[in-house]
Each structure stands twice: as C-alpha cells, then as structure tokens.
C-alpha cells in the first residue's frame, strides 16, 4: 500500500465515522420531536375503565421507566446508542413488550429475499437493453425510446398497483397480498413453498420492471457518451476492430452503473417500502409503514438507522472498489 493510498483510505474512514455519528444523532432527535405522548396512548389502550387516577399515574410511571423516558435527554441518548450496539434497539411502543429487534428480525429476511434477486435481475436486464439500445441506435431510438421514456415515467407505486390490479384482481393469476396463504404455518413442506413462490411473483416483477427502465435509460446515455469519446475515434483511426472497441466502451460505461447497483442494494430497505406496502408483503418496509402509522418511533428510528448504515457501507465499499478499478480515481487520489 502506497502512502497516497493510505492517506486516501484514512480520509474516507474519517468521513465515514463523522457521517455515521451525524446519522445516529439525527435518527435519535427527529422522531422524538413527534407530537403526542406515546406513553399516554399505551396507557389509554391498556387501562381498565374503572381505574383510579392513582393507578393511571402508576401505569404511566411504569411505562416511562420501561421505555427509559424518565431519564434526561442525554441518558436517553446513551440508552439509544447502547441499544443500537447490543442489537435490541429498545422496546417497541405499539407492540409492547416486543423488542424492536424482534420486529425487524421477522421482516428483514423477507425484504432481502424479495429485493436482492429482483435488483440483480433488473440491473442485468436493464443494462443489457440499454447497451443494445446505444449500440443499435437507429432502430431502438426511433421505435422504443419514446415508449421507454413514457414507461419509465410511471412511478414505482403506480406500476405496482397496475400489476396488482391486472394480474391479481382481474386475471386472478396471483394472490392479492401477503407472502403466503394466511392459514399456513411456515414450514419446509411443498405446499408452503409453492404458496410462497406464487405470492413472490408480483412484488418481484414490479421491482424488476422499475429497475429495468431506470437502468436501461442510464446505461444507454452513458454508452452513447462513451461511444462518442475521443479515445473511441482514436482507436478507430488506429484500425482496432469494432468488437474490441465496444468491449472497452461498455466497460467504461458500466462504471456509473456499478455505483447504481451498489446504491440500490444499499437502499434496499427504503426501496422495499413501495412494493411491500402495496402487496402487503411482511418485510421491513411493511414494519416501517405500520410504525409510521402508529407513531412507534423506536421502530422508525431503527429502520431508518438500518437504511442509513447500509447506504453508508455501500458507498464506503464503492469508494474502495473504485480506488482499484477506476484508473481516473486512482490517478487523482494516489499520486
């Protein structure tokens, strides 16, 4: 490792740590500004109608202690950080006495299993289409580009709703919501697995379709930019075969697309919100949606913290990968 490289990584790690701290602080402060006292609403839900004023007061004190709300703001912050590091993230308000980690733990695997394959498939197909559109410009541009532009203008939730109505409600080919039939208990039986697969289709394809559109448009314009670059003209003058040039061109055009892939994997949980809420898929996005609607801020801040940390890690990894694969970054940073 050269001196320049070490300096580069030190700088990156410094930024990583600073932003991480800022993210944790924001995640702590913002939800606490939410109007309405969570303890009062829980006590209001759980107390028996004949309770005396003293009993109510007792309950309020009890829950305040449970949630650590009787401490001052710094004590609460310390609890928040401690809970984040030991992985429990504290106790949920709306689903007391469940811990936040239990709620997240049950959702995150559904989200990962839905999003990761969908993002990868959409990315691959989208880039292939985009590269093809750039290479065979005349046909694709005239015939398909306006159409692609229109379809990529349909918002993600709109596309999901149209898929849902078309295939689940009208044609009845796929179930309307959930991740498996409501009567089933998760097991390794054939019945359960086939139910999971049939519930998987619509959310999966809705994510794939959306990412194909975005990736194809991006890849096409990147490729066209690269195809018109001076090095391509120079290579043509030198008489290098077209096939060879195209390989270089697409490798260069891929670079921003790799960023896109890493970022969409990093922000997977945030991206899951739309598809999951429309198809009522029991992933992390759905937990977050439920938490938002019941002002359950330990869950909200845990989810947003997870998203932030994943994006942070993704962009950090990107910086490291770029340092090795992109000669321009190498030249700029390592001298």
């Amino acid at each position, binding site marked *: 490792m050269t001196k320049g490289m070490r300096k580069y990584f030190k700088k990156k790690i410094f*930024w990583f740590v*600073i*932003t991480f701290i*800022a*993210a944790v602080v*924001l*995640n702590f402060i*913002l*939800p*606490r*500004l*939410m*109007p*309405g006292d969570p303890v009062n609403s829980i006590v209001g839900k759980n107390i028996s109608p004949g309770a005396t004023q003293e009993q109510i007061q007792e309950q309020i004190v009890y829950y305040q202690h449970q949630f650590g709300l009787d401490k001052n703001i710094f004590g609460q912050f310390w609890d928040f950080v401690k809970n984040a590091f030991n992985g429990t993230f504290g106790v949920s308000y709306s689903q007391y006495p469940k811990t936040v980690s239990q709620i997240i733990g049950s959702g995150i695997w559904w989200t990962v299993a839905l999003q990761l394959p969908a993002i990868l498939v959409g990315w691959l197909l989208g880039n292939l289409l985009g590269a093809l559109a750039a290479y065979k*410009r005349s046909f694709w*541009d005239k015939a398909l580009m306006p159409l692609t*532009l*229109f379809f*990529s*203008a*349909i*918002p*993600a*939730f*709109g596309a999901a*709703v*149209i898929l*849902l*109505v078309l295939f*689940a*409600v009208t044609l009845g080919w796929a179930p*309307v*919501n959930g991740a498996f039939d409501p009567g089933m208990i998760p097991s390794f039986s054939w019945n359960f697995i086939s139910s999971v697969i049939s519930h998987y289709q619509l959310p999966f394809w809705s994510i794939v379709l959306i990412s194909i559109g975005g990736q194809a448009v991006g890849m096409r*314009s990147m490729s*066209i*930019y690269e195809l*018109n670059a001076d090095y391509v003209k120079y290579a043509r003058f030198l008489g290098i075969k077209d096939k060879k040039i195209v390989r270089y061109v697409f490798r260069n055009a891929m670079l921003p697309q790799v960023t896109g892939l890493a970022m969409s994997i990093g*922000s997977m949980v*945030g991206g899951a*919100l*739309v598809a999951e*809420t*429309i198809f009522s898929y029991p992933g992390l996005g759905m937990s*977050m*949606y439920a938490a*938002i*609607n019941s*002002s359950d*801020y330990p869950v*909200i*801040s845990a989810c*947003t913290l997870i*998203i*932030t940390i994943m*994006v*942070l890690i993704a*962009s950090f990894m990107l910086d490291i990968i770029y340092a090795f694969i992109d000669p321009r970054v190498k030249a700029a940073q390592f001298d």
Partner: protein
Amino acid sequence: MKHTLKNVFHSPRFLVGFIIFMAILLTVLIYPYFVHRDPLQGLGKGFLEPGTYVSVYDANNTGTYRVDLPEAAEKRLESTLPAEDRQMMLDFLKAKGVDVSGLDASNDKLEGLLAAWKENYDEADAKKNKYEGFSTQAKRNALRRLDNRISGDNSNVAMSVVRGEGEEATSTAVSDTDYVKVDEVANAITLPLGTDNFGRDTLTELVKATGISLLIGLIAGSIATMLGLLVGLLAGYVGGLLDDVLMFIANIFTVIPGFVLLILIYSALGAESRGITTCAVIIGITSWVWTARSVRSQVISLRNRDHVNLSKLSGHSLFRIVTTDILPYIASYVVMAFILQVSSGILAEAQLSMLGLGPNPNELPTLGLMMNWAKLFGAYTSSNAWWAYFPVILMIALISFSLNLMNTGLDQVFNPTLRD
C-alpha cells in the same frame, strides 16, 4: 439568448414535452372557471362508477315526450332480462331438441337466442308435448309469462307513478314510449370519472390535486435548485474553509438518503402541522445536494478561465463576477436540474403520502393523497374502482414524462455529443 431559445424549441422532444406540460397546466388553470364545485365536497356515499346520474324523483316530475326507438324493446330486455330467465330459455330449447351450441346467456348472444325462441316456442305446442323439465303447469306458466315479456307485451308488468298520499293520491301510468329530456330534469350530474370513496367528484378532485402537486413540485424544485446553486457557487468559487464546511454538510446529506430524512422530518411534524408549503419546503431542503455538487465542480473548472481572471483584475465585485462570468456557463445545467427537481419533488410528495405522511388530508387534495385514499379504501381490490386511482397514476406519469422529455430535449441541444 434568442438563438438558444429557437434551438430549444426546434428540438422535437422538448416541444412534445412542453406541449403536454402546458396542456396539463392550462387544464388546471381553466377548469375551475367551468366547474364551480368544491373538490373536497362529498356528492354521494362511496365509489360511484363514471357516468351520468339523473334524479329519478325529478325525472318523474318532468314533462314527457313520445319517442319510438326502433330497438327499444330489445335494449330493455338486454338490461332487464335476468340470467335465470335466459337459462330457462336455453333449457327449453335444449329440451325441444333445438341446436343451441353457440348460444349462451350473455348480452352478445341475446339476439340469436331471441330469434331461436320466437321460431321454436309455441304455447299450444308446449302444452301438448310436455317437454322434459317443463311438464308441470307452473313451469308452463312461467314459459308463457316469459314469452309475453319477450314479445313486447308489457300489459302484465305495467308501471305507474303515484303522487300524494291516502285519498288524494293520483296515479299516472308510465308508458314504455315516454321519454324525458335530460337537460329538463332539475337534477342530473355527469361524473366523467365517477366519485371516490368519500363520494367526491374524482375529476374535479384530480384537477385540483394536479394543481397542488405541481405547486409542491415547483416550490420544492425552486428551493432545491436555489440552495444547490448557492451552495455550489459559494463552495466552488470562494473555496477554502467555506468550501470545506459546505461540502461537509453536503457529504452528510448525500450519505443519509433524502427519503429517510423526509420520513423522519415528516413524522416528527405530525399530520396537523404538515401544510402544503411546509411539505414542499421540506422536500426542497432535503434534495439540493446533487445540484450543489455538480454546480461546484463546474464552477471549479470555470474559476481559472481567462475571462474570469480578467474580471478579477478589473476589480469587479464577487457578485458581478459570479453573475456575469460564471452563471451564464452553468445556466443550461441549472435549468435542466430544476426540471428534474420539480419532477422528483412531485414524486416525493406522492410517495410520502402513500406512506401516510402526506400533507394534512383535510385541507386540499394532492395526487399522493388520492393514491393513499384509493389504497386505504380498497379501490384496487374490493371495490375495483379503477377511476379512483388509474387517472391519478396516468397524471403523475404524464407530468414526469413531459418533464423528462423537456429535459432530454434540452440535453440534446446543450450537449451536442448526445445529438443524433
């Protein structure tokens, strides 16, 4: 300037996008002058299908005209002949040994079914032969009544309107050739897109919501672009400590996803304090970062150009150098960034509203709120009310489509390498 504008409007993509956007904008501005209806006023209970609704009460109190439509009886049968009667006709024909393949109980096949019926049914014949399944007297009577009805003899289903109560009640017979003129009926309403779950006229609501969403997009886009431009110019041109501080803030904003910030800030505000402007401003101040970064990098490459140095030597002020020597070079980029920011502002509002974090739902409709209501009240699934969400999706898609088209059109004009 004039030349650039001419170039821009010669780009077909920009032109198409511009026309679509202007059409939407004009509709939003003009529509309220033609339909004076409060977009949030409930007209009915729940979803009503698109169509014209005529008051039965008023129709009965409107003067009638005699009209003889040639196919009136058939049309009446089409909309009133129940499926079980059609099935009975099929069963009878089958029992008599008539070939009924290709006929069924649907409206398309009604004509064929009626023709086969008229050809084969005969009261005396049915009485004599006692076909299988139609041997009892009751069944044969049912067949006879059905035949009467089909052959247009309505004497056994006469209708009359009774006005008043008790002794003073008068009754008027309604003939099947009585018609009312729709514009003479005191109360009738045409709902081109039906009503939503609250019974609101969806078209009026949609137009209002489009206007509000465009406003949110414009406010958010202006704030994001202005902030991004300001930060980018200062960081890029002044440099030094100011650059470090501003880029520090920008870095934090880049890594914490804007959407997460929006969710956190919105839920911290609570529904009551989320007005339209508040929502727009918050979207604006969470999405300036990319503009700031690009502006900064372009300004850095500009700041050592000869003409800028010359300006500096002439003792021009910072403000003058920035506005006359730097801004013109990045103006095209800023315009493009603004268009994209407007489009993403509208989308951000829609997504937040769909999560239940939208503007206060009791004040004004937005496109996102309409989507959220459609979801909450089962328009996709149980009610199957396409008119409550499909036009909204189409409108959002059209707005982003037109803005994206304008953007790519500008891109082609300003970045000639992309030009065909």
